[in-house]
């Protein structure tokens, strides 16, 4: 405010005077009223502390070495004495060069200049000189860029530019410094991000907290081109409701806005996660924006919730198929698999139905171990098989006398193999469905564990172990080898189910595994050919005689 500025007295601020006396100057004295280690010139050190030093970090303090004669403070430790003591000497240091400075009449010659203190009078001047991002001693030599960007030019979005909305930027709350959510993180164009952060909540304030409200995330519409008027509204793509126990259900009729409401001591419709999907064109415009929400509930005891946010970009008029490598598989990306409904090989045109990764059911997946370890309660938890990651998982099966073998075998087969086990696996990470030769069929093996070798009756067998062995090789140049899957073998081990006397029960472990084996042919030694000396005598060497 202007009135307080005028009321303040005009005091001359100045920087503290520089210390130039060599005897008082101590560069290593950093801690106030405490002894600095190995600092022999520190006045706060007592003689006992000097005894603990091994050497002086600053042995000599002098002025500019160009001077012909100058005072020097020399600090050293006398280790012979008991206790060791610090020796301080003020000596004269002489520069023998003939070009040493005998005298100067220029005060700032050998010292750094104290900067000018800004006052109301010289502030504008200083701002002109030093206000820009760079300045030098001769400001006139800088050429000023005098053509400003045209005002009518609309800027397309470029990679990394914050996506602008009506009022500010599209927010993607993320943890800054600590794990708490900060709403000031803008989403960058074409930057796929996924963040998780913690927000403190309370049931009483949940209706008024903006960040828990769906509207906060879809309220302001995105500008299609930055600084342009055309706006894109954020539509609600889907809403998933998560119960207090953790189960999620997808809501039908997702265009209804659900706002937080307090009911029975719970606050419902609290935003737990937002996933933005932005469709862009290749000219840098945003065409569509959609948000998928996960809503949850909080109780009176909940002090904080974890929110997760994600943003992904898709180019308009394209259908993205995530590749697992280009062309060789990348370690950690899912192995692509699929079906061929018409059988292989077939000369007529055929397409693989449902490529992996875009369709969860046809992915090569493996049973995922659950904390309960009960096979029959597995609920279909499966993990995708990632290239290069060997996985062993399993569960425990409790067999009671009442269980029938045939349905049990079928259930276990479903548990081990999954709902739809694919038939073909892509040989390269970017294999297209049309290239039949790029797909490797899965070979199935059946091994039956005979516990009692002389059992003649064909008792029913239940699968106990399922192993997928993927053989891959290095393909391509030596410098940049690409991983290529050559062979996939799925081995199912079954064993006979012994009939139990009633009342007894057994627990048998069921395992499934995925193993990746590198079958690249090893390097063979090769030798360079020995150089041969080809000697041929000239044609007429023995002239007179031949």
């Amino acid at each position: 405010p202007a009135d307080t500025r005028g009321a303040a007295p005009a005091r001359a601020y100045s920087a503290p005077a520089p210390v130039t006396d060599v005897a008082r100057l101590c560069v290593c004295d950093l801690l106030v009223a405490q002894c600095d280690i190995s600092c022999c010139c520190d006045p706060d050190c007592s003689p006992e502390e000097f005894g603990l030093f091994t050497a002086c970090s600053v042995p000599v303090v002098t002025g500019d070495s160009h001077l012909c004669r100058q005072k020097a403070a020399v600090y050293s430790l006398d280790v012979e004495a008991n206790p060791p003591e610090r020796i301080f000497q003020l000596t004269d240091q002489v520069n023998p060069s003939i070009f040493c400075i005998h005298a100067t009449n220029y005060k700032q010659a050998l010292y750094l200049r104290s900067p000018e203190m800004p006052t109301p009078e010289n502030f504008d001047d200083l701002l002109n000189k030093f206000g820009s991002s760079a300045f030098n001693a001769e400001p006139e030599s800088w050429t000023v860029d005098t053509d400003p960007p045209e005002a009518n030019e609309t800027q397309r979005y470029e990679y990394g530019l914050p996506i602008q909305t009506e009022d500010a930027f599209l927010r993607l709350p993320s943890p800054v410094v600590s794990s708490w959510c900060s709403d000031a993180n803008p989403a960058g164009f074409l930057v796929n991000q996924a963040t998780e952060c913690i927000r403190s909540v309370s049931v009483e304030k949940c209706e008024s907290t903006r960040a828990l409200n769906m509207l906060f995330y879809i309220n302001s519409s995105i500008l299609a081109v930055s600084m342009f008027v055309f706006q894109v509204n954020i539509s609600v793509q889907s809403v998933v409701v998560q119960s207090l126990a953790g189960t999620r259900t997808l809501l039908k009729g997702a265009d209804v806005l659900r706002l937080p409401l307090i009911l029975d001591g719970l606050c419902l419709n609290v935003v737990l996660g937002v996933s933005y999907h932005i469709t862009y064109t290749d000219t840098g415009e945003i065409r569509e924006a959609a948000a998928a929400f996960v809503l949850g509930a909080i109780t009176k005891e909940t002090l904080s919730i974890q929110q997760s946010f994600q943003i992904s970009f898709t180019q308009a008029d394209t259908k993205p198929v995530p590749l697992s490598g280009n062309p060789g598989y990348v370690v950690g990306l899912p192995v692509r698999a699929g079906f061929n409904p018409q059988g292989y090989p077939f000369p007529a045109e055929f397409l693989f139905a449902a490529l992996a990764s875009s369709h969860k059911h046809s992915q090569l997946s493996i049973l995922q171990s659950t904390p309960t370890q009960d096979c029959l309660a597995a609920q279909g938890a499966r993990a995708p098989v990632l290239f290069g990651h060997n996985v062993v998982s399993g569960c425990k099966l409790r067999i009671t006398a009442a269980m029938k073998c045939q349905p049990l075998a079928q259930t276990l087969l479903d548990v081990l193999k999954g709902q739809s086990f694919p038939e073909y696996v892509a040989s390269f990470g970017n294999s297209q469905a049309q290239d039949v030769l790029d797909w490797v069929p899965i070979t199935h093996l059946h091994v039956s564990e005979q516990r009692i070798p002389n059992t003649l009756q064909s008792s029913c067998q239940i699968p106990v172990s399922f192993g997928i062995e993927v053989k891959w090789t290095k393909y391509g140049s030596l410098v940049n080898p690409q991983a290529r899957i050559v062979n996939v073998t799925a081995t199912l081990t079954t064993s006979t189910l012994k009939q139990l006397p009633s009342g007894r029960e057994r627990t048998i472990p069921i395992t499934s595994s995925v193993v990746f084996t590198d079958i690249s042919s090893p390097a063979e030694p090769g030798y360079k050919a020995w150089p041969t000396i080809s000697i041929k005598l000239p044609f007429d060497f023995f002239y007179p005689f031949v």
Partner: protein
Amino acid sequence: RILNSSSQLSSLPLQILFYVNGIYYIFYFLATLAMIVYKSQVFSYPDEFLAPDLAVLFLMAMLEVPRLYLGCKGNLREEEAALGLSLGLTVGSVVLSVYLLAWQTYVLWADVVLTAVLLCAYGLESGLKVTAIAAFVS
């Protein structure tokens, strides 16, 4: 008139000194100029301090030429007016060399040595000129 030392009033030591002074001054001028260039590269030498030092050096060079010429002429022709004028110019040169000795922005040890030698030469010259003028006048 018979030319013998008793009737020749021109001072031989003064003439030798003029000759030596001339050669030494050329060396002194070049050396001091080179050192000013060195100082401006190695140390911080702002323009407002460099200008007076160079001005003094060039002024001294410009004074030196008439000073030596008038001195030689006056001594050889036994004219006290020329010699007196040369003495006046010597006083100016002394003042300028005292500036270079004591009030220059950076005074190096080499500066001190060279300017001291020059001042000694000026002092000796002035003494001999006074004696010569006294001899001419009487």
